């Protein structure tokens, strides 16, 4: 579904991503773990068209995303759930969702209603608060809204940037359960996380990003067993 080859990107003269190669197959959860500043968010933003590609290629369903505008990338089926939720706080829950479905609205208005119903089914708490302003939701609810908003575009690939940030462990557990459910319903997820243990716990495969380079990759279970990953990312000193 997504193939990234030798991708390099950055900001101005700063080269953040150094020759990244990775891929996501349909129906899997792939996670990218790494410390702060490793380049995880930059990678998602580059795939999403928010950061310009310096070299290398990004193939999404065999189309090169290199020079396509972000809104067209969303329309082609690749949606981003940004870090820190970024919901439109002065709009209601439902309005947020409708905005997320703008690519559908161009086609048919009926499609939007069906999608909203689907999102409410996935997150019943959003239905309960559909007329509430997004800014008044709790952190966990805002995260669900951000995910729901991304789902409104009926993406074939959902990219999530640090969905666990700033959430209580119990809420994180719930969010991750929803991600698993999305996968089980046939969705494809690219998950960027600092919480390596939780991410590897639900992912099929993973990549370890360190200072802009992928230094390790493999089945999530294998990475959990890898001593380097354990030492550096799982906070477990083994002897």
């Amino acid at each position, binding site marked *: 579904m997504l193939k990234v*080859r030798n991708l390099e990107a950055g900001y101005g003269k700063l080269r953040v991503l150094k020759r990244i*190669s*990775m*891929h996501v197959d349909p129906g899997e959860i792939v996670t990218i773990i790494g410390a702060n500043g490793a380049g995880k968010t930059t990678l998602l933003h580059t795939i999403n068209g928010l950061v310009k590609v310096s070299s290398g290629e990004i193939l999404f369903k065999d189309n090169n995303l290199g020079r396509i505008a972000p809104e067209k990338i969303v329309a082609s089926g690749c949606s981003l759930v940004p870090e820190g939720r970024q919901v439109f706080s002065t709009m209601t829950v439902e309005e947020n969702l409708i905005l997320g479905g703008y690519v559908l609205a161009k086609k048919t208005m009926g499609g939007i209603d069906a999608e909203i119903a689907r999102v409410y089914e996935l997150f019943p708490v959003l239905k309960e608060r559909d007329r509430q302003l997004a800014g008044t939701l709790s952190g966990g609810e805002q995260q669900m809204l951000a995910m729901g908003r991304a789902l409104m575009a009926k993406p074939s690939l959902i990219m999530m940037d640090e969905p666990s940030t700033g959430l209580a462990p119990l809420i994180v557990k719930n969010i991750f359960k929803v991600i698993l459910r999305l996968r089980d319903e046939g969705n494809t997820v690219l998950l960027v996380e600092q919480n390596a243990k939780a991410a590897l716990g639900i992912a099929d495969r993973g990549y370890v990003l360190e200072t802009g380079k*992928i*230094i390790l990759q493999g089945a999530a279970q*294998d990475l959990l067993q*890898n*001593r380097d990953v354990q030492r550096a990312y799982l906070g477990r000193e083994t002897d």
Partner: protein
Amino acid sequence: MKYWEEDRECMAREDLEQLQLERLQSTIYRVATHVPFYRNRFKEINLDPDGFRSLQELSSLPFTVKDDLRRNYPYGLFAVPLRDIVRIHSSSGTTGMATVVGYTRNDVKNWSDLVARILTAAGVSKDDVIQIAFGYGLFTGGFGLHYGAERLGASVIPISSGNTKRQIQIMQDFKTTALVCTPSYALMIADTMLDMGINVNGLSLKWGLFGAEPWSEAMRTEINNKLNIQATDNYGLSEVMGPGVAGECLECKGLHINEDHFLAEVINPNTLEPVQPGEVGELVITTLTKEAFPVIRYRTRDLTRLITEPCACGRTNYRMTRILGRTDDMLIIKGVNVFPTQIENVLFEIEGTEPHYRIEIERENHQDKATVLVEVMESIFFDEMKKQRKLVDTIKKRLASELGISVDVKLVEEKNLERFEGKGQRVIDKRVL
């Protein structure tokens, strides 16, 4: 069950190449970071480990040869600290000749899965009773097959090698359905059964997985007929992992290489350039997932040919033909790798022998028989028999401990063996496969 890991064994070529590139890039990064040998070698040839961008650039990477492994004996090429190692295997030979390889927990897990793939391809399933008559120990054959068979869920009989009559007894009593050993040992088992008056049709045997030494289609036919089984070939070497690198499916038209874990190239051993597609040359392997002991472009010295045409079994992994020969002087005697230099070194250390010797190998009753002819000083030859016998015993013992197999030793008078310029033709291999 037809495949063990269908999503990997039947991958679209394009997806496989993406996976290979990702794995190769992180392997190069890891060896450059964790193995001084590779870091220095990359530096010597001005290779930027972060610059590798395409599988087509593979030939820009340096080769690794067996001597590199020997020089870094025992742990010099390990890419992880010893505390992350859960298993160590080694080739035969003493310091200076031996090679040592290690495995992390993940390596053992992957190895088991790869062997399970090969067993599945060869017809074996979890319902089979599998008798592993490879030697257990430092040699990778026994444990490699053992872990793969357990992973598959088959019932494993870890009988190890030797004691043919007991092998047959157990085969009958335990209702063995799959046999794992060298092809020559399979034939010896068949002949021993005949001698014992055992009807092969009364056995439960169905499958045979044979490897660790070269064999031929003629031998396959003979094994199939004599044991009433379906015999398949499989390939591996400890430097790369052990068994599980490649194995035949039931089409029996070449060995599928586990290409998601091993990148295979075929080169001309003289020019070191890649051969034309489909031509015979030396197999070169780069590991893609090994944690403890990754190797970059390891020269196997085995001659083969790549088959890129699709296989009727549905696997998309390329195949290689059975091993067609060697590019060095390594001999495989009773499934054990033997280098003439090992014999030379032993003889050199024993007083009374001349540095002239010849190795004769023949096959008697399907078993390899090696005889080392050694020139001895005239004085010894005219000495009493007792002294001669003692010398023969000493040489035999030293050779057995160095090589890991027993060989016959014959003393000959000085200057009785032909002299050669340079390296010389010291090996006479009379085996017909």
